[in-house]
């Protein structure tokens, strides 16, 4: 500890970081958020030297029973990634909420539902039918589907219930902070770690590790307030690498997406799909996106508007790629 040189602002971390108990958990996720934490590279050593990691399935061998045995409020901060897809996800959300002083929805899935939230456009039955019976790689002559309880010769086996609806973390428990991104960029994760350890956190409910402005504010592509008369797809047209995607007619959610990732998609040659969610004050990101896109379309009459709009393929999943569970529609009608 004596060798720790890390500082946040004017405050040395070493005095109180030794007491910090940190946990990270993945619910319905891909592991990318956990790997993004590891992608702070050598700074992970500062973190590990200064904080006790008490639960982190990707990296350390703690069991659920050990979390259950902790007193309430034992963990200082839990970074919870992944959406709530199953009864196990929901159980862990409640468990970690009770055990944590501060619970952070970490990454797009916990924040707004993320890619797993696209499943809300289907029912559980439709998903099971496709996954367990129809896909070409499936051989399932007994037509087995997952059951929460099954009896075998030795006893009963249980697996979690697969819910019909994917939920965000704050739809099942109280959340203190939100860190957006799919995944959150390591630079921002380090900012968040510093804010946590220095105690310099904004009021509860805030989005941290991100900008308050939009992607367009950070995007280096040239913008000229140009109107568009049609939409193109990057599969069939070549975008100019230096010009605003939207002004070239490629659908981009940059205008309605919170910044903070240094426009990592636009600088990689693909338009923004909104993984950071929207800036404060936006009620429904997809609706806001439709409004923003409508404002750049130039058309003489309604028929022309219709013709232009029809050039956007897959509008629902294009305008709500990461946030269906957090949107007003939330899911397909059951």
């Amino acid at each position, binding site marked *: 500890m004596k060798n720790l040189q890390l500082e946040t602002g004017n405050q040395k971390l070493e005095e109180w970081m030794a007491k910090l108990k940190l946990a990270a958990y993945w619910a319905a996720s*891909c*592991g990318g958020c956990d790997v993004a934490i590891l992608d702070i590279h050598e700074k992970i050593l500062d973190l590990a030297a200064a904080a006790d990691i008490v639960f982190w399935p990707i990296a350390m061998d*703690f069991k659920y029973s050990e979390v259950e045995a902790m007193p309430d409020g034992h963990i200082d901060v839990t970074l919870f990634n992944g959406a709530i897809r199953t009864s196990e996800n929901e159980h862990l959300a409640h468990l970690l909420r009770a055990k944590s002083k501060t619970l952070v929805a970490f990454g797009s899935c916990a924040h707004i539902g993320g890619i797993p939230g696209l*499943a809300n456009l289907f029912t559980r039955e439709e*998903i099971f039918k496709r996954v367990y019976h129809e*896909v070409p790689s499936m051989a399932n002559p007994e037509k087995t589907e997952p059951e929460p309880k099954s009896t075998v010769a030795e006893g009963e086996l249980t697996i*979690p219930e697969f819910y019909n609806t994917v939920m965000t973390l704050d739809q099942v428990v109280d959340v203190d902070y939100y860190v957006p991104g799919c995944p959150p960029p390591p630079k921002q994760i380090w900012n968040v770690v510093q804010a946590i350890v220095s105690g310099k956190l904004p009021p509860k409910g805030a989005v941290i590790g991100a900008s308050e402005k939009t992607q367009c504010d950070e995007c280096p592509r040239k913008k000229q307030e140009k109107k568009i008369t049609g939409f193109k797809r990057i599969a069939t047209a070549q975008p100019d690498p230096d010009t605003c995607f939207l002004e070239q007619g490629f659908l981009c959610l940059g205008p309605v997406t919170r910044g903070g990732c240094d426009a990592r998609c636009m600088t990689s040659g693909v338009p923004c799909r909104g993984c950071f969610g929207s800036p404060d004050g936006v009620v429904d990101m997809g609706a806001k996106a439709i409004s923003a896109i409508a404002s750049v379309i130039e058309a003489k009459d309604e028929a022309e508007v219709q013709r232009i709009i029809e050039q956007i393929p897959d509008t629902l999943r294009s305008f709500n790629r990461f946030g269906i569970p957090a949107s007003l529609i939330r899911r397909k009608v059951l």
Partner: protein
Amino acid sequence: MKRISIDPITRLEGHGKIDIFLADDGSVANAYFQVPELRGFEKFVEGMPIEEVPRVVSRICGV
């Protein structure tokens, strides 16, 4: 029959648990590996424009 549950399996991507059943002499009678997760990519990418699919299915595993 005595049961040992390993829940969760750690230090890998994804969710898993193992139930091990022991016979009276302590030997392993049977063991079950269970995957308690599914997200349904097979369904929700259907009908999506092909250029969007790589950016969606890369979220199957982000490790």
